[in-house]
């Protein structure tokens, strides 16, 4: 009657958590909603850590961030006025859960720190928007409003370093659009539908659609005196800027990312445009350009880049890299695009400590890795945590991704000319420009990075509404065959989860892993489940 072995096993599972392969993580999910019947039991030590140091700590820190940046009344006003904050950012801890599912030990800790950095930066930005917002302040334009610059989310925050401490740049779309898609994919659909309701066809990039839709629904705070837009590297987005110019109605400077960025003449022109942008800021805000501030901030940003290189070194040469695919991708693109800020340094300090521990003790952070994967092109925003699922289900460890590799440079600060030249380079290597629509040489940087990061498989994102990337689909197919590379395609429509569902994405990977690789899943409960209504 009393099975000693079973009891011993149950006790071991309780204390250490079930080993990978016995977890059946699909069984703890509610049908359709993706909510948890109960959160994952990771053993006493890791569950305690997750509960106290991640769940409690982050809820507490979110409250503290709101208190530090404008306070709860400002937050409540913003929440009541804007759909994208109320509908999106309350379930943020669920976003952690989805990204960190199945992780243990140091990988769980380091990845969670990355999420913490992103949450702090997000709160900082939307609270600044609300503090300045004339719409929720009875139409009054306050001092903060007059010291804030609205920028397009793909304009690098570093362009505005010369005014650090005097002016604040806040991207228009990063928080109302980009981050929402990752946290709660329902919100963005309202904005896509809004812009189509005024006559835009459904086939352009849904990113441009959603960003314009924010303005169509009058859901953009009036938080800045002037704006700096760009072509968002993808030229479909030029239309977004026109709608923004119309609806936001502010003095505007357009700072485009050139297509042919390898051409030295183009670079020279780009340097001039950055200087023109600086003069625009001086004219609009009456605050002079400061070389000292620029230099100081660039040097701080270089520190972040140097640590990133150390991380890549560990990721490419060891099994000790403690950051999972989704945390790596989102943190890196957020940090490099937003620019230097103290929270990135705090997070990097914590992560360095964890990473050094992993290396010195030779901890295998993802022990069930069957394939080291590089993810290429633009990821599905509503399912950026697909790589967490892929590791749990198939042992596919996404070591690195294209977006992480875009801004692969430090910026010289010895002279003004060197700094300007490097800044132009950085600006031109924008998201969706450096590789995705940056021409043949750059999109095929995949091969050298695959080798550099010691990867044996490619997860190739297939953004169905990106005309640029659709144009090179066949070329990749040919190259994969010619080079005998295992690659699976991951179809998606960036923010729009209605075009390709998460289940369809999983099916595409399942099919490849069974029919081509002839492998068995590590966790069969994750093969097929319905999360069609999840955040």
């Amino acid at each position, binding site marked *: 009657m009393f099975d000693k072995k079973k009891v011993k096993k149950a006790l071991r599972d309780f204390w250490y958590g079930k080993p990978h392969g016995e977890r059946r993580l699909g069984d703890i999910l509610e049908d359709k909603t993706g909510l948890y019947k*109960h959160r994952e039991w990771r053993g006493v030590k890791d569950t305690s850590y997750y509960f106290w140091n991640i769940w409690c700590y982050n809820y507490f820190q979110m409250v503290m961030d709101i208190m530090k940046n404008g306070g709860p009344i400002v937050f409540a006003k913003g929440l*009541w006025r804007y759909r994208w904050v109320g509908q999106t950012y*309350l379930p943020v801890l669920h976003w952690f859960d989805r990204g960190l599912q199945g992780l243990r030990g140091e990988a769980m800790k380091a990845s969670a720190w990355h999420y913490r950095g992103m949450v702090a930066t997000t709160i900082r930005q939307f609270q600044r928007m609300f503090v300045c917002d004339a719409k929720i302040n009875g139409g009054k334009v306050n001092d903060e409003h007059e010291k804030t610059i609205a920028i397009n989310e793909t304009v690098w925050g570093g362009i505005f370093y010369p005014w650090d401490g005097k002016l604040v740049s806040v991207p228009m779309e990063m928080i109302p659009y980009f981050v929402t898609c990752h946290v709660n994919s329902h919100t963005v659909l309202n904005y896509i539908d809004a812009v189509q309701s005024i006559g835009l066809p459904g086939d352009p990039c849904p990113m441009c659609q959603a960003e314009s839709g924010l303005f169509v*629904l009058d859901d953009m705070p009036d938080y800045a005196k002037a704006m700096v837009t760009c072509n968002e590297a993808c030229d479909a987005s030029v239309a977004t800027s026109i709608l923004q110019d119309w609806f936001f109605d502010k003095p505007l400077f357009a700072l485009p990312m050139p297509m042919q960025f390898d051409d030295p003449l183009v670079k020279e022109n780009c340097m001039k445009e950055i200087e023109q942008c600086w003069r625009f800021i001086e004219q609009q805000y009456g605050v002079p350009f400061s070389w000292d501030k620029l230099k100081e901030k660039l040097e701080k940003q270089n520190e972040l880049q140097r640590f990133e290189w150390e991380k890549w070194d560990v990721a490419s040469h060891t099994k000790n890299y403690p950051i999972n695919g989704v945390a790596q991708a989102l943190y890196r693109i957020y940090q490099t695009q937003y620019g230097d800020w103290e929270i990135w340094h705090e997070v990097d300090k914590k992560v360095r400590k964890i990473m050094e521990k992993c290396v010195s003790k030779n901890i295998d952070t993802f022990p069930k890795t069957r394939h080291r994967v590089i993810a290429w092109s633009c990821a599905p925003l509503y399912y950026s945590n697909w790589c967490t699922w892929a590791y749990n289900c198939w042992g596919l460890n996404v070591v690195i991704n294209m977006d992480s590799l875009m801004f692969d440079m430090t910026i010289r600060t010895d002279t003004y000319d060197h700094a300007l030249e490097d800044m132009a380079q950085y600006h031109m290597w924008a998201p969706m420009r450096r590789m995705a629509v940056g021409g043949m040489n750059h999109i095929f940087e995949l091969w050298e990075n695959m080798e550099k990061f010691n990867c044996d498989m490619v997860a190739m994102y297939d953004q169905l509404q990106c005309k640029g990337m659709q144009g090179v689909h066949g070329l990749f197919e040919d190259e994969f065959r010619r080079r005998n590379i295992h690659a699976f395609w991951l179809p998606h429509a960036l923010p729009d989860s209605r075009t390709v569902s998460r289940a369809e994405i999983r099916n595409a990977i399942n099919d490849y892993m069974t029919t081509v690789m002839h492998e068995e899943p590590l966790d069969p409960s994750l093969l097929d489940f319905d999360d069609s209504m999840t955040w």
Partner: protein
Amino acid sequence: MKKCGCSLGKALLKLCLKLFGICFAALAVLFTIFFFDLDGKLLYYVVEPFLKKHYDDMERKDTLKDLYDVDKYPKREF
């Protein structure tokens, strides 16, 4: 004096036990919320539908009625 110290010690011990009890109970409640994803369920089934209804019912400006005046701001020279 001895009696007084003893009763003070007892009172302190009682207070510590009480505090410990309160903290333990609070932690137990928090852990229950955490483990059974009650925060997620509350947000999904109650808060989000309520807020969605509020946002759907909100009166919004018809932005298309705004004039697109491209010459509103003076031409700049750099």
